[in-house]
């Protein structure tokens, strides 16, 4: 169908490929740098003077340090508990809410929708939120403070509702005629028919629990309960690797300190980056469903 391309179009095509290849490099090179630096000797990393594309003086000493570090281990444990419990709870509560909001003949449906939507644009602010969660609900320094306040995201709720709305009414009505109550309809019919969106939600919630750090800054006081992200903040942002190297002789510290940071990044980011490509086709769908509603 296409006619022979004009010179202008060919130039445009070349331009496109150059731009896109540039984009790929900008995205990938920092990651390559991190991975290579994590396998390198720290003094070499400091002396590198630019991108590191191959390991310099290849060694895995940094990873050994990370593996021996009790903070990273306990952070990992806290984060895993939060991700697993949190995601489970979030999926349940989001599907309940999405089902409620997708019912059409509900007298108070629009009121509930209004209550939900209002919070997207107005909030009491950080300090009252802290005071309520910490002093009124007494969740301070508890792992629940990392789960409950973020167990529902209004955006995800709306996305899921949009997806539930697309299930044909006839399917639900026939179940009602068979005498099924709303719980049975939700868990036996609606959710199985929306597995793609549930997968997206698992990914979205899982990632957001994994990556969240600010609630932990607000509410968690004891170090043993720190999630992984707070440990990472100490190591990466506050540049504090000394504690990790108490077992290392002073003279050797320089040669490990720098690559420990990069090894920590690799260890803490890898799980998500490994899962992500497999779920990609689902979450694109999830974002699209949200776009329909806007």
């Amino acid at each position, binding site marked *: 169908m296409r006619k022979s391309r004009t010179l*202008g*179009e060919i130039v*445009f*095509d070349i331009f496109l490929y150059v731009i896109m290849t540039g*984009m*790929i490099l*900008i*995205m990938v090179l*920092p*990651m390559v740098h991190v991975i290579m630096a994590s396998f390198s000797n720290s003094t070499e990393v400091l002396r*590198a003077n*630019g*991108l590191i594309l191959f390991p310099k003086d290849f060694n895995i000493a940094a990873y050994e340090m990370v593996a021996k570090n009790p903070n990273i281990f306990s952070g990992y444990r806290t984060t895993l508990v939060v991700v697993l419990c949190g995601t489970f709870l979030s999926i349940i*509560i989001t599907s309940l*809410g999405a*089902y*409620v909001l997708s*019912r059409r*003949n*509900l*007298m*108070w449906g629009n009121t*509930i929708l209004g209550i*939900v939507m209002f*919070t997207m*644009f107005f*909030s*009491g602010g*950080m*300090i*009252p*939120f*802290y*005071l309520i969660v910490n002093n*009124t*609900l007494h969740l301070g320094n508890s792992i629940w403070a990392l789960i*409950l306040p973020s167990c*529902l995201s209004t955006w995800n709720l709306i996305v899921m509702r949009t997806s539930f709305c697309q299930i044909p009414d006839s399917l639900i009505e026939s179940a009602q005629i068979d005498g099924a*109550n709303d*719980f049975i309809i939700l868990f036996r019919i609606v959710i199985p028919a929306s597995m793609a969106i549930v997968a997206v939600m698992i990914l979205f919630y899982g*990632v957001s629990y994994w*990556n969240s*750090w*600010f609630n932990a800054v607000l509410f968690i006081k004891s170090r043993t309960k720190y999630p992984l*992200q*707070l440990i990472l*903040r100490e190591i*990466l*942002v506050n*540049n504090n690797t000394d504690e990790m190297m108490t077992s290392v002789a002073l003279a050797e510290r320089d040669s490990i300190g720098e690559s420990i*940071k990069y090894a920590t*990044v690799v260890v803490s980011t890898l799980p*998500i*980056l490994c899962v992500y490509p497999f779920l*990609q086709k689902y979450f*694109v769908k999830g*974002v*699209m469903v949200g*776009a329909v509603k*806007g």
Partner: protein
Amino acid sequence: MLKKEVSLKGNSFAVRVKKDFLRNKYVYLMAIPVLLYYIAFCYMPMYGAIIAFKNYKIVDGILGSEWVGLQWFIKFINDYSFVRVLKNTVLLSFFSILWTFPAPIIFALFLNEIRSNKYKRVVQTLTYLPHFISLVVICGLIVQFVGRDGMITSILVNVFGMERTNLLADPAKFRTIYILSELWQGIGWNSIIYLSALSAIDLQLYEAAELDGAGRWRKMFHITIPSIVPTIIIMLILKLGHFMTIGYEKVMLLYSPNIYETADIISTYVYRIGLLEGAQYSYSTAIGLFNSIINVMILIIANKISNKVTGQGLW
């Protein structure tokens, strides 16, 4: 079902409520945990925000503390930090939207023009990736990369002959660093929504345009872009709805006292005086409330303008 609705009319309000409740009792039962969440973590903090008009003391509680009127708001306006944090918030948000809002749209348009599906998918996979890296890790890497001996600093020194310094310690460079990293993180992910809008365009429009002899550029400007304008407007309004709270977590991870001059924004100031340095709960709540109110006003104005000019908006 139609019959039921007819029979519901004519009845008094109380009877209708009762009938609706009986018919949907399980649905309302399902709504309870959801409503509890919103009450506990959204509406109770909103109620707690009344301490902005009180002199809150922990022993007296939210209700028991004495009313002080607008004292804290007046204090904020006279605060020596007021101009600085307000200016920084507005500038950071404005420049951030100026760059990071159009970028994904342009990216999506370009991506849409690529004919090889395989290459397209590779670009997509790789550009979505940064969205999944945690903010702490990204900020940690920024700190490493732009430090004195960092990778990016070294490249700038070698290529542009820049003087070797810690870029994050320079107030003049903070916004640039913030926005560039924001672009890196979000350009791919934020383009998804536009790509899906692009894929919904009726192909017949393009065929008709081709018959009329339109080239690639003209098709882009006369068909593709007009078709995604509604999506663009909705996304812009949503973005403006968070104008005043944009990216505070990131600022918190990146800033330091050296660069408060450009980096200290309202949200970070609230956090510092409310929770970090002194527990000035009422004062910081008032500042936060001030911020929220400006935010809502911006949203309402943006929506109104959009309704008038383009005929569509969020409500």
